[in-house]
């Protein structure tokens, strides 16, 4: 069966590393990273600052060349191709709009460099201006428009040459919250309308979850996990991923027994409790005696009585978020635990700080981490 166009690989990164400096001050910004980014995909590189996500983006753009490894764009080796020969455009974090050119001239720059015919250039510029709703400001200088408008121009400028891949380097970080939410929706719309592969770099997990088709979580120059927002959120493989995305509770558990089937299932006993749980066991941990499990705060339920509860603890703090409230508990063994529950009208349950409460956790909500 031939691959459909949708499944074709746009960017193939094969064992790429980027080192800066030399011993003893060698910095491994990227270390042996491999990744496949599909065509027409909204792909996000997510991680804290210094994790290597921007370095990977700059390698794909061609601003840096890798210390080792190979990169393919549509099955063509682009490892040593200069940026002006790659059908890849970038939306810069600082926008980097040319200050001596107008909005329209900024957008037409790439097209002129590609030596497109004049009528085609002006048609594309108009099309792009309409796409980002900037028709009225066509002849403004770029320092005469607001940050949000500059952002749109930067997008239009990068989209105008219709590249195979669009790279976005934390483009929303300079915008305020409301504008950022608006642009998130806008970006997703643009990606669907243009059908261009988007590679989006961010440290904002919420941004990553709302917009992406797939996310790669990065840390210390490595890719830890690649998956859909759902997979990343519900099935993080490592503690770092679970911790970085959303809120998490980590609890040490004792491995009582392991049954080997198609996938290993373990009986686990949470620290300080007597009840056992069944959970999938990562293959690499099948011989271990202890494991860390993680539980999302919204997957645990709070109850007044400690009877029948999975865990028990004392309420130390409550944080109100409008839709939800976070209840911070100190468990009987001294560990901290957070329960997030939705606020409902007429909710009868009003615990007070210092109350002794029970936490009920569903077996399905418990997941064993690799590390």
């Amino acid at each position, binding site marked *: 069966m031939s691959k459909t166009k949708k499944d074709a690989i746009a960017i193939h990164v094969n064992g790429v590393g980027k080192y800066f400096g030399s011993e003893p001050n060698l910095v491994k910004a990227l270390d042996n990273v491999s990744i496949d980014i599909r065509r027409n995909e909204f792909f996000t590189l997510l991680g804290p600052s210094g994790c290597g996500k921007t370095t990977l983006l700059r390698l794909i753009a061609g601003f840096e060349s890798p210390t080792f490894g190979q990169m393919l764009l549509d099955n063509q080796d682009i490892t040593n191709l200069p940026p002006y020969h790659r059908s890849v455009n*970038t939306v810069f974090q600082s926008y980097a709009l040319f200050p*001596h050119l107008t909005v329209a001239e900024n957008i037409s720059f790439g097209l002129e460099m590609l030596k497109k015919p004049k009528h085609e250039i002006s048609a594309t510029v108009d099309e792009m201006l309409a796409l980002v709703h900037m028709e009225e400001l066509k002849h403004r200088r770029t320092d005469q428009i607001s940050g949000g408008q500059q952002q749109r121009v930067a997008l239009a400028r990068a989209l105008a040459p219709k590249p195979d891949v669009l790279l976005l380097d934390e483009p929303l970080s300079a915008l305020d919250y409301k504008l950022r939410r608006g642009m998130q929706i806008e970006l997703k719309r643009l990606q669907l309308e243009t059908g261009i592969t988007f590679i989006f770099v961010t440290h904002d997990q919420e941004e990553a979850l709302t917009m992406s088709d797939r996310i790669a979580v990065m840390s210390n120059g490595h890719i830890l996990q690649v998956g859909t927002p759902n997979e990343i959120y519900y099935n993080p493989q490592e503690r770092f991923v679970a911790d970085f995305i959303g809120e998490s509770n980590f609890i040490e558990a004792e491995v009582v027994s392991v049954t080997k089937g198609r996938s290993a299932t373990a009986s686990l006993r949470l620290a300080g409790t007597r009840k056992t749980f069944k959970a999938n066991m990562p293959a690499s941990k099948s011989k271990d005696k202890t494991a860390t499990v993680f539980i999302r705060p919204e997957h645990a339920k709070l109850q007044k009585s400690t009877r029948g509860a999975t865990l028990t603890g004392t309420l130390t703090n409550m944080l109100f978020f409008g839709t939800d409230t976070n209840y911070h508990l100190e468990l009987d063994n001294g560990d901290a635990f957070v329960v997030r529950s939705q606020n409902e009208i007429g909710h009868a349950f009003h615990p007070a700080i210092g109350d002794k409460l029970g936490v009920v956790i569903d077996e399905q909500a418990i997941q064993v981490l690799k590390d």
Partner: protein
Amino acid sequence: MARKLSEMEAERIKRKNRANWLLSMPAILLLLFAASGPLLIVIVYSFLTPGNYGGILWEFSGEAWFKVLFAQDIFDDTISLSDAHLSIFWRSVQLSFLTTLICLILGFPTAYFIATRPPKTRNIWLFLITIPFWTNLLIRTFAILELIRNKGVINNSLISLGIINEPINMLYTDMAIVIGMTYVYLPLMVLPIYAAMERFDFRYVEAGFDLYASRFKVMRRIILPIIKPGVIAGSILVFVPSLGAYVTPRILGGGKNLMIGNLIELQFGQGKNWPLGAALAVTMLLIVLLALIFYMRISQRSEQKDAQ
């Protein structure tokens, strides 16, 4: 109430204006006495009669201005264009233009180089650029003379290396003047271009590369237009003093290849014709003015062309 407020605002603006005037007083006084005053004297002198032993007589005369452009034959009183003056004007403009061009060609990469060093080393490079200023211009010009004369360092080395047999005659030529002026004024080209380049955001270069511009196109379409004010400032700073150069053409030109500066000096010295000297000085000012207008026109036209 509203009227009162507007009155208060008017009063506030008045007070602010007065403060601004007071603050700019030193600059205004300096301009008045150091720039406008002497200039006025020169203009007035150019319309007076020369004294017998230099100096001026307070009698109006247009003769100096007539002599700037025309010459009267001492034998038959025929009037013709003053070839001597015109050729000196023309040579001055040519040599100054050439100097500016060479300074630009040498200065631009130098400024680019310094601006792209890490911030710490940049200051060292800038410091090196200023070293020639530590020594007197006269001494430096004599040093150049020592380098380029027929038995100077350059010719001697070339001969001893067997590259040439006869010394290249460089001293007392127009080339010598251009070499000297380029050497003297090069820092004035490097510094303003560096200042513009230092503020230049090199992310624009990446953006250019990203949008399919080659190195050449990035230079022409992005770097040059953005740092153009620095290039213009540098060119003016080199062209204007070159046009009025006196020491360099005097020493390296050997007194036979005159420039306007030497011609003016001649009128105040041996020529004992102060009004003519003053008229020539004002003429030079007009040439500078014309050159600046011409330059602005060119840069504006290229801007319009870029905008299309």
